[in-house]
């Protein structure tokens, strides 16, 4: 069917670079039988060809959709059902298709917009040589205080064929790695720690399979800012709107640390236009759904859907200390970003949106008229006029309006469902976003203003860097003394993951163990 044209297209492509990485992959491809499967397996199975399949991933893999929209039913489905969805792509490979594949042809330069079947190959290299399995395993084992912690953790995968595989679990990092190399998923999700190994969930009744623990997670997605940002829409991001993510990181990070006393917090770029947060303290992992809901509601300030214009309605003039700290953070961004860069008051269409948040008809009319008659006024001048107009009124209700507007235009918008549901999935750090090709790297919350999403290494850049490793410095099977990532631009990110996140957590776990042991010792000396 559709897949028919794909090998031809691949063969027709230029083959210029003599890439050791890809040559190694060619071996891996024939040896492991899976590597090339992503290219032709689909055709053999009668599903649409690779190109189509990637297009599908692209069109639908917006983070917002994943959690908030279409997958709702799927994510809450029972394990048995989730497995029924998975087509038999995995074990059903067409050997002849593999042999006819011209491996050299795949070395064609990859154009970002057209990450097609080539991504499967890049991903195999990435998982084989760059993805930090060891570090991820170290994280998710939490010092092996509870030996079941890693083994009972749910992993789930989205494959290029769009097969969605839930409730997988593994004994070791190696087992996880070999399975990921076999499946070559375009997306890896991490779920909860269950009372039963998720792989064995089928053996028990659905009510006996329950999530016990998981990190407290937050998902901030740029699409939720579409109604307020003026620079981009949908999947696009630019330096201006990335400021929203910086605000979100600062506000949530502060509240987590100061208000809730959490220490082990990992911020991760979602690969395109959002950020994820993993709070990994033991106390956070043990939170009940009710406590998670309370935390979300504690943080939530912007509320309401498309049918609610005014989304910030804080009661009274006095703000809760947590909100006033957040307000301080937000106000630093409001003038330079929202007014000066995004110019939310520059045209009537834009300021109308702001004015409708003022519940007083005459003020709205006056400001609208004043701004229309002075088309050259700057946004900052207009904002000051708005504040002055509200302050002139003696009604206490109006005096808080400018504060509410500021918050509506800056305060973080969190996807509540992801944080509350224990069994919800969140994309693993260090995944590759299938559309942008960028790696989901950690973000340093202290330096989040300097984070530039367009500077994050892409999978093709990384594979290219691997090719440049001088002979002897690395080993293509990844068993060298220095890991391959050390030679790529992924290094600073993995180092940061180890230094800022894993090391601190290790210290906490060790001191907890020490305390436990001392308690035991005391008992023993009796």
């Amino acid at each position, binding site marked *: 069917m559709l897949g028919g044209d794909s090998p031809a297209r691949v063969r027709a492509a230029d083959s210029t670079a003599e890439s050791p990485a890809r040559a190694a992959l060619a071996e891996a491809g024939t040896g492991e039988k899976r590597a090339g499967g992503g290219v032709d397996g689909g055709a053999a199975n009668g599903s649409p060809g690779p190109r189509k399949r990637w297009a599908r991933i692209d069109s639908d893999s917006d983070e917002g959709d994943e959690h908030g929209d279409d997958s709702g039913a799927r994510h*809450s*489905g029972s394990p048995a059902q989730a497995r029924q969805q998975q087509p038999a792509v995995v074990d059903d490979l067409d050997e002849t298709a593999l042999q006819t594949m011209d491996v050299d042809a795949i070395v064609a330069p990859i154009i970002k917009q057209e990450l097609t079947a080539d991504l499967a190959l890049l991903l195999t290299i990435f998982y084989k040589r760059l993805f930090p399995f060891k570090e991820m395993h170290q994280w998710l084992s939490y010092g092996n205080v509870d030996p079941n912690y890693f083994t009972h953790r749910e992993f789930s995968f989205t494959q290029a064929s769009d097969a969605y595989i839930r409730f997988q679990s593994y004994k070791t990092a190696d087992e996880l790695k070999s399975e990921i190399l076999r499946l070559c998923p375009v997306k890896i999700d991490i779920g909860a720690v269950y009372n039963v190994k998720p792989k064995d969930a089928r053996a028990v009744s659905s009510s006996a399979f329950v999530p016990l623990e998981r990190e407290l997670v937050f998902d901030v997605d740029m699409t939720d800012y579409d109604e307020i940002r003026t620079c981009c829409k949908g999947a696009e991001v630019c330096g201006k709107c990335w400021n929203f993510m910086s605000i979100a990181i600062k506000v949530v990070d502060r509240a987590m640390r100061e208000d809730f006393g959490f220490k082990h917090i990992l911020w991760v770029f979602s690969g395109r236009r959002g950020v994820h947060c993993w709070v990994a303290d033991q106390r956070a992992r043990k939170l009940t759904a009710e406590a998670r809901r309370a935390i979300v509601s504690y943080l939530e300030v912007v509320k309401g859907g*498309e049918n609610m214009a005014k989304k910030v309605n804080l009661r009274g003039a006095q703000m809760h200390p947590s909100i006033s700290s957040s307000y301080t953070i937000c106000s630093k961004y409001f003038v330079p970003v929202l007014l000066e860069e995004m110019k939310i008051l520059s045209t009537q269409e834009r300021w109308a949106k702001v004015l409708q948040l003022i519940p007083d008809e005459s003020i709205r009319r006056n400001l609208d008229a004043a701004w229309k008659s002075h088309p050259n006024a700057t946004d900052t001048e207009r904002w000051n006029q708005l504040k002055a107009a509200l302050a002139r009124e003696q009604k206490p209700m109006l005096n808080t309006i400018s504060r509410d507007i500021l918050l509506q235009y800056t305060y973080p918008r969190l996807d509540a469902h992801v944080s509350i549901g224990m069994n919800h999935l969140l994309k693993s750090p260090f995944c590759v976003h299938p559309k942008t090709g960028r790696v989901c790297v950690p973000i340093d919350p202290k330096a989040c203003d300097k984070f530039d999403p367009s500077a994050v290494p892409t999978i093709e850049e990384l594979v290219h860097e691997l090719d440049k490793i001088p002979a002897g410095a690395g080993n293509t099977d990844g068993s060298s003394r220095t890991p391959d990532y050390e030679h790529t631009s992924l290094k600073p990110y993995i180092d940061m993951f180890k230094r800022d996140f894993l090391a601190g957590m290790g210290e906490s776990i060790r001191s907890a163990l020490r305390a436990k042991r001392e308690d035991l010792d005391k008992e023993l000396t009796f």
Partner: protein
Amino acid sequence: MFKQDRAAAAGAGAGAGLSAASAGGPAASLSREALARIDPQLAADYPFTLNMYAVPPRDELTLTQFELLALDRLRVLRAIETARLRAKSDDDVARLIEPVVNKHLELKRNTLVRAAGPQVLYEQRRKDHISHFILRLAFCRSDDLRQWFVRQEVELFKFRFGIEQQVDRDAFIALANLDLAPVSFEDMCREKMAAAGVAPTAPAAQRQELLSRFAADVRATYPHVVQQHQQQTGGSESDALRRAVFYRVPFERVCELVGRRAVLLMGGAAYVPESERLVLVANAFRAALSDSLMATAKALPRLDEEDRLMPVLDSLARQYLDREYKSTGPRSGTIRHEDIAGLSQHFPPCMQNLYQTLRHNAHLKHVGRLHLGLFLKGIGMPLEEALVFWRKAFHKMSDDEYNKKGYVYNVRYNYGMEGKRTDYTPYSCAKIITSMQPGAGDAHGCPFRHFSPERLGEMMQRLSVSEQGAGEILRTSREGHYQLACTRLFELTRGRVHAAAQAQQNQQAAGQGGPPAFQLVEPIEHPNQWFDLSMGLESGEHKGSARTPAKPGPAANGRMSTPGQVKIQTQTQTQTQTQTPMQTQTQTQTQMDYEFDDVDMDALAELEREMDR
């Protein structure tokens, strides 16, 4: 036999009480010692109206008594549930449930021990104790039942805590062993300095600045606490702060307060003011009850009561269960996708909004699809038609994209053909109002709850609601009575459309005159109910929805709704003629009729007659 002993003991106690009263004179409150002097048994078994229900009762009951006690408590719990739906503030809830509690489960306070006699107090508290444990047996057997029971019991506990005397509250908390360590404002300041890394030896100016900011934070978090202390004792704000008492607890123990931002959080600790102590107590009550229910559930199969108690327990629990909308009407399975456009005028505002958004955008987000999809299923659209309906609605999407996005799966899921394979029922108003709050880009939700007043106003203008009516609806929804607002909208819009069809009934009903009103037989509690009522009006049936087919009796009765005041007309039972104080009771009754059509109503009525005797 035991009962006889009890009465004798109580009688003796009463005598002692009288002498104590004459000696001590009337006291505002009664210490436990005094209570023990009056009736040692009472003081030992039930020293307060509040009860943690830690110890099961050891009494003998007849099977009839067993059932009657349980039904009384069930009435109260159901009234509480309804009150929670209708009223927002705790005060309103208390007002609504008070008459019901007093009728069926009254507990007199200790101060009334002399006036009412200790045996009355003892009997009341014993009844409360026993009925609680009977319902535990009935409601321990599934997650849903347990959740429902815990929620209502906690609510009842809070209500009683609110009306209990301060001394008894304090004594109850002391006895309940809640492990609450009070901290003062100074303690909090020390903790703040430690958290901020400011040593007590730091320069005074630095400490001063930190602490004055902290004091402002505390005042902003607990304005009422400061006010209250100032009112009581006068003095400055900082004096008031210094006198305030807080309890330092892990934030997980007071989720409710954290969610409302009603507490100050510092390093994972929540500082609960004394005035919010109830939350701590109620949470302890909830936790203990949840644990005991699990234990009871495990023990129940060993009771060996298959023939005697189980049928009773089953029927008790069933009155809660199955409160789902079942499409049993004549249209079931006959609605075709092309009918929807024509039928949409009968949709409630929430569904009309979703339908219009769908028409406008050729897309709906997940929860919106869920709500509208199940609603359409509820009005009788079979799966095959639903598949066509949704495919056509998403007409801007290519076949490929549509299939890949799993929309087919979604639709089939609603019909129980995928996933958990549950035959899902349409969402009720309560669920739409309280769960799955709409976020950015979402169109779902209850217009009266989730629309801005402007947007709601526009909607009513489109429906050509009079200005007066619109004002009334806006006011009602602002006060948090979303379903009443919706009911009123129905009366004003659908009522008018079918004024002619109703004229006759109205005349009969209006008996004594008054404006011709367009009456509704029951408050809107389910989007599909609106649809059924609206359709029913059209076809001139003018009776309840598909859910109450078997219910005989006057469907439209004759109370008027006065202009400017929302009054819900209910399907009143003949014996409940009293007006205001009974209204809650009546509504509860109606809701029962409405939602539990699986319950053996004859058996219930039989029981009720027995009760009345």
